[in-house]
């Protein structure tokens, strides 16, 4: 397991591994660039109403299907809407779907994982068996099954994508819990009669967090990609929402005529997902340098 989580066993020395982690992370040039890009993107999403030069959904039939220009940096679509503005507003949707779904998945998964690892026996076998089953499925199929029940729409996409993050986090949290369960301070807490619930929340949960954070970043990339795919096939965000996958689907009929309709949304998805994946790789390497050689 990671050096960070083993070091947190030593109560009172938790600062040192954090500083060490930070020092190693600062050396990851690629991950730092990715982090910078993501901070910019999050800023753009938060301040979209002030940054975006045009209304993302207001049609402008005078300026239909125009190529990139000084007025419209990324051109306009079939309704004359400014694509650059739509991409900035779309960042809100994609980032919100990514963060919310992975947060939901992480809460569910870490909770299940800690309970499974802590109590062991049949609870453990049951939880892990279900996780194995879910892990064997490609995320998109699970998501489509959930959409089939809840109906299409961006809110339902969040739930649909959250579900396949659950087993990943459950496994991760269970592994750490099994280790920490043996720790002296957990034994001590139990000996003085601390309730199980408190032990899990206060003594085990913090130990699982370093790994959870690394996977959080990587799962956001996957989740954004899956959500965009769902919107692309018409099961996610519905028009006139400026969701990137839906924009790609809208623009495909104009390929060869107006390529900027598919170029910019595609680039937005790619760069965002790449950013989260590179950040995740960097966090992982900083957390556990041993993994680097692989």
């Amino acid at each position: 397991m990671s050096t960070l989580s083993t070091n947190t066993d030593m109560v009172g020395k938790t600062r040192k591994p954090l500083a060490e982690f930070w020092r190693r992370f600062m050396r990851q040039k690629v991950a730092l660039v990715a982090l910078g890009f993501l901070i910019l993107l999050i800023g753009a999403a938060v301040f979209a109403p002030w940054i975006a030069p045009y209304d993302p959904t207001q049609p402008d039939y005078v300026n239909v299907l125009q190529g990139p220009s000084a007025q419209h940096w990324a051109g306009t679509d079939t309704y004359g809407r400014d694509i650059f503005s739509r991409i900035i507003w779309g960042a809100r949707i994609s980032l919100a779907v990514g963060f919310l779904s992975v947060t939901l998945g992480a809460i569910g998964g870490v909770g299940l994982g800690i309970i499974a690892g802590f109590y062991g026996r049949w609870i453990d076998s049951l939880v892990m068996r279900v996780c194995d089953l879910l892990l064997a499925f490609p995320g998109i199929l699970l998501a489509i099954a959930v959409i089939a029940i809840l109906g299409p729409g961006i809110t339902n996409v969040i739930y649909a994508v959250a579900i396949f993050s659950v087993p990943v986090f459950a496994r991760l949290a269970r592994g750490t819990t099994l280790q920490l369960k043996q720790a002296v301070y957990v034994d001590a807490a139990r000996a003085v009669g601390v309730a199980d619930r408190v032990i899990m929340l206060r003594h085990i949960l913090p130990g699982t967090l370093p790994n959870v954070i690394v996977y959080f970043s990587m799962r956001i990339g996957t989740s954004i990609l899956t959500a965009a795919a769902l919107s692309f096939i018409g099961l996610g965000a519905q028009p006139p929402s400026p969701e990137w996958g839906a924009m790609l689907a809208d623009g495909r009929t104009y390929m060869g005529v107006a390529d900027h309709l598919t170029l910019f949304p595609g680039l937005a998805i790619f760069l965002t997902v790449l950013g989260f994946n590179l950040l995740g790789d960097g966090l992982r390497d900083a957390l556990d340098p041993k993994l680097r050689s692989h």
Partner: protein
Amino acid sequence: MLSFLIKRLAGMIPVVLMVMVAVFAFVHLLPGDPARLVAGPEATAQDVAAVRTALGLDKPLPQQFLTYVGNTLQGDFGMSLKTRRPVVEEIGMRLMPTVWLTLFAMVWSVAIGLLIGVVSAVKRGRWPDYGGMILAVSGISFPPFWLGLLLINLFSVRLGWLPTGGYGTWQHFLMPSFTLGLGVAAVMARFTRSAFIEIAREDYVRTARAKGVPERSVIWRHSLRNALIPIITMVGLQFGFLLGGSIVIESVFAWPGVGRLLVDSVSYRDYPVIQALVLMFSLQFIFINLLVDILYVFANPEIRYK
């Protein structure tokens, strides 16, 4: 070996049962009355009641489940709400296009993934390695549906070399299989690289080098052959993901497979078809995982005799 097989097969029974319960529960989780869904929006209350009795929806749930299991075992999945034809027929005529698409995609994945992975491992820490790994992380992050559109734009719209979509000749296969395979190729490249680096540390590789075996032979004979065991496992596991990816890629290239059938059925709310397809996909994944486990044990004597 036999006891392992029996144990592994027996372990599948609860999993298959769990999947069947989930797929059966699916229709009951839907908002609204299943009988009304089957009868259609214009049906009278009488029609709905007739459908309810005909489908056995008025019976207690456990009995309904047994009927469902019985029908499934006989290959009876009901009728499509959209076409009013047996679901088995609908799926049957679309199954092979998806199987072929997945197989061809796997050929791309293994060819590209192995090449990049081996080159990266051999040139570790130098620019071919960095280049290869940048390609790999980009491949993992690249939206496959966008890649599909870019390829269509280049090879169909602009150059006119390949058909934009559809099914038939080998030309129809090139772009969809490549698009589907690229993401897995990236995963394979990363995996092959680390498997290869691991093996390069083994004694027999050092011995081979020490006794003067040419470097090319060390790489392809001694290293790759041993790296193949984990790689084969990976190939098996990735099949499931290719099947999942086919759902989106088939929509990009108008491919007449089960993936597109699933998307269309969800849009149309054709529940009998969705139910049958989800069950079919699930059983496929379970079966693939079983196959991988068995192959793994066959390929690795250490586990076989434990």
